[in-house]
C-alpha cells in the first residue's frame, strides 16, 4: 500500500518511456511530500532526494528484472524510479547490525533517552530477550527521580524472576558502579542500567549520564526513541550521540500507525545502527531490526 504522495509520484511517471530530469523532478516533489509527512527530517529528505535523482539519472539500478518464468523484463520508468527509492532507503538504514557486545564476566547495557520513550519497559524486554539467549540479566533502577520508577522496574524484574538492584542512598553514577559489584555477587552476567528520561539540553542530567558511562564503561549505550517523534529526533539523537557516543538505537511504539521517519533521520545523522524495534507493551514485544519493514512504512 503506497501513500498518496508515493502513488502520485508513480502515476506521474506512468506512460513515460524513459526517466528524464524533468519527469524525475515532478516525481521527486511527490516523494518529498510523502517523506515529510512520514516525519523524516527536512534536510535528511533533501539529501535523500538528491541521491535518488543522481541514481535515477545515472540509471545505476538494474533496468531489468526476471519474471516468474525467468524471462527478463524491462522495467517501466515508474517501477524503475520506485525501485531506486526503496533501494536508497534500505541502503540508508543499513548495514544491519543488531549485535549486543557483552564483555565477560559481566556485560553491560545502558538505556538512555527523552522522557516517556519506553526505556523502562524496553529494559524489561531486553532482559527477556537475553534470558532466551541463556544469559542471566540483572536490572539496575538508576531512575531516582520519577515517582515509582524503581517500583516499576522491580515489577518487571519480578515478572521475569531476575534481580533488580536499587539503593535510595546512592546517586545514579555510584549506584551503577555498585551494581557491577552486586552482579558478580548474584552471579549475573549481564547488567542493564535503566536511567531517567531527560532532555538533551539539560546539561546537569546529561553530565550524570557521562558520569555513569565514565564509572561503568558500558559495552552498549542504547538511545531509546519513540517512533512517533517528529523533526526533533535529529537534534536529540545528535546531542546524545555527541555526549555519549551511543552504540545504537531502539525504536519503540511501532505497533501504532506512526510512519517512523525518525528512524531514517537518526541513522543518517549519527551513522549508528538501529538495533531493536518495540512492537507493543508486553515484555515479549521486541524484535531485531530489519530494514525492509521500516523502509516500506516510511515511504508509505
Amino acid at each position, binding site marked *: 500500500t503506497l501513500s498518496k504522495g508515493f502513488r502520485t509520484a508513480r502515476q506521474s511517471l506512468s506512460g513515460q518511456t524513459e526517466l528524464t530530469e524533468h519527469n524525475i523532478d515532478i516525481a521527486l516533489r511527490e516523494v518529498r511530500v510523502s517523506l515529510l509527512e512520514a516525519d523524516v527530517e527536512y534536510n535528511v529528505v533533501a539529501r535523500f532526494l538528491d541521491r535518488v535523482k543522481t541514481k535515477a539519472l545515472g540509471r545505476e539500478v538494474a533496468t531489468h528484472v526476471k519474471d516468474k518464468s525467468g524471462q527478463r523484463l524491462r522495467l517501466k520508468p515508474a517501477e524503475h524510479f520506485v525501485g531506486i527509492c526503496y533501494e536508497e532507503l534500505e541502503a540508508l538504514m543499513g548495514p544491519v547490525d543488531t549485535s549486543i557486545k557483552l564483555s565477560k564476566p559481566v556485560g553491560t547495557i545502558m538505556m538512555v533517552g527523552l522522557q516517556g520513550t519506553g526505556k523502562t519497559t524496553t529494559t524489561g524486554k531486553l532482559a527477556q530477550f537475553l534470558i532466551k539467549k541463556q544469559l542471566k540479566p540483572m536490572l539496575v533502577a538508576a531512575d531516582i527521580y520519577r515517582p515509582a520508577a524503581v517500583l516499576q522496574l522491580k515489577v518487571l524484574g519480578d515478572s521475569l524472576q531476575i534481580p533488580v538492584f536499587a539503593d535510595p542512598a546512592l546517586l545514579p553514577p555510584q549506584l551503577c558502579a555498585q551494581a557491577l559489584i552486586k552482579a558478580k555477587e548474584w552471579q549475573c552476567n549481564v547488567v542493564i542500567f535503566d536511567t531517567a528520561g531527560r532532555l538533551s539540553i539539560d546539561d546537569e542530567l546529561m553530565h550524570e549520564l557521562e558520569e555513569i558511562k565514565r564509572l561503568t564503561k558500558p559495552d552498549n549505550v542504547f538511545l531509546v526513541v519513540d517512533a512517533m517523534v*517528529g523533526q526533533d529526533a535529529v537534534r536529540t539523537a545528535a546531542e546524545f550521540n555527541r555526549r555519549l557516543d551511543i552504540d545504537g538505537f531502539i525504536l519503540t*511504539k511501532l*505497533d501504532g500507525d506512526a510512519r517512523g521517519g525518525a528512524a531514517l533521520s537518526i541513522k543518517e545523522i549519527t551513522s549508528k545502527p538501529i538495533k531493536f524495534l518495540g512492537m507493543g*507493551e508486553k515484555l515479549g514485544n521486541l524484535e531485531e531490526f530489519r530494514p525492509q519493514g521500516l523502509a516500506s512504512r516510511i515511504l508509505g
Partner: protein
Amino acid sequence: LSGQKPIQNETLVELESILFSADIGVKTSQKLLDMVAEGIRSGKLQNSEQIKDALRSQMQEILCSVLHKPLETTEPNSTTVVMFVGVNGVGKTTTIGKISSQLHAQGKRVVLGAGDTFRAAASEQLAVWADRSGASLVTGSENADPASVLFDTVQKGKAEKADFVLCDTAGRLHTKSNLMDELKKAHRVLGKAQAGAPHEVLLVLDATMGQNALMQAKQFSESTPLTGIVLTKLDGTAKGGIVLGIIDELKIPIRYIGVGEAADDLRAFEPKEFLNALFA
C-alpha cells in the same frame, strides 16, 4: 514560486524550513505559504520583514480561532469530572499531578482516579502525586476494570464534595480498537456515575511528536469527544507545531502546556509566546 523576486523566494524557502522543522506538517505549511505567496503576488508584501510578519499573523489567526482557557469549575458547589486520555508516555499521569497541585493551591478539593490498572506501578506513581498535592486517591486492584475504578472515583468525589475529579487512564495507541472501546466504556460509565460527566476530556499530546499527532486527535475524538488538549514537554527542543493543524482542523482548545517534570511546570497556552518560541 515563479514570478517572484529572488529575495522573496529566498524568504519563502527559509520560512518553509522553519515551518517544517517545527512539525507544522505539509498540509498546514502549504496553506500558510500559499496565503503568503498570494500577498507577494498582489504586491502587498514587498520585503522579507513584511513576509515574515504576514506569516506570523496567519499563524496567530489559526491559533486564536479558538479560546484557550485552563480548567474551570462548571458550576459552583458541583463536582467537575475531567478525563485524561492519550497514547503511551505523553505525560498524562504527571499532568494530572501538576493540575491537582495547582488546584490545591487555589483551595480546591481534588480527588484522583487511578484508571490505569494495567501498567506496572501506574497507581503507585499517581499515589505519589496525590500525596504531593493533598488530593484523595481511588485505586483498584491490579487489572481491575478501569471503568469501575473511575466510577468509584466519582462516587468518592461526590461524597467528599470535591471540586474536581481527575481521571487517569492507561496510555494506549489509537490503532488498538479494543483499547479504544475500553475508553468509550469508561466515558459512558463516568456519565452513569454523575450526569454530565465527564465534563472535560483532555487529550495529552507530547510536543516532540510528529504528524501522527493529528491522527491521534481524530481517533481519540471518536471514542471520547475531546474538550481540550494538554501539550507537554515544551521545555525541550521540540516546537510542538503539530497543534496548528489540530486547531485548524478540529478546533480543540489548548488548556495547558507542560514545561517540565515538577508540580509547578504547567502553564496556560499563550499563542504569542508559542509563536515567539517557534521562530526563535
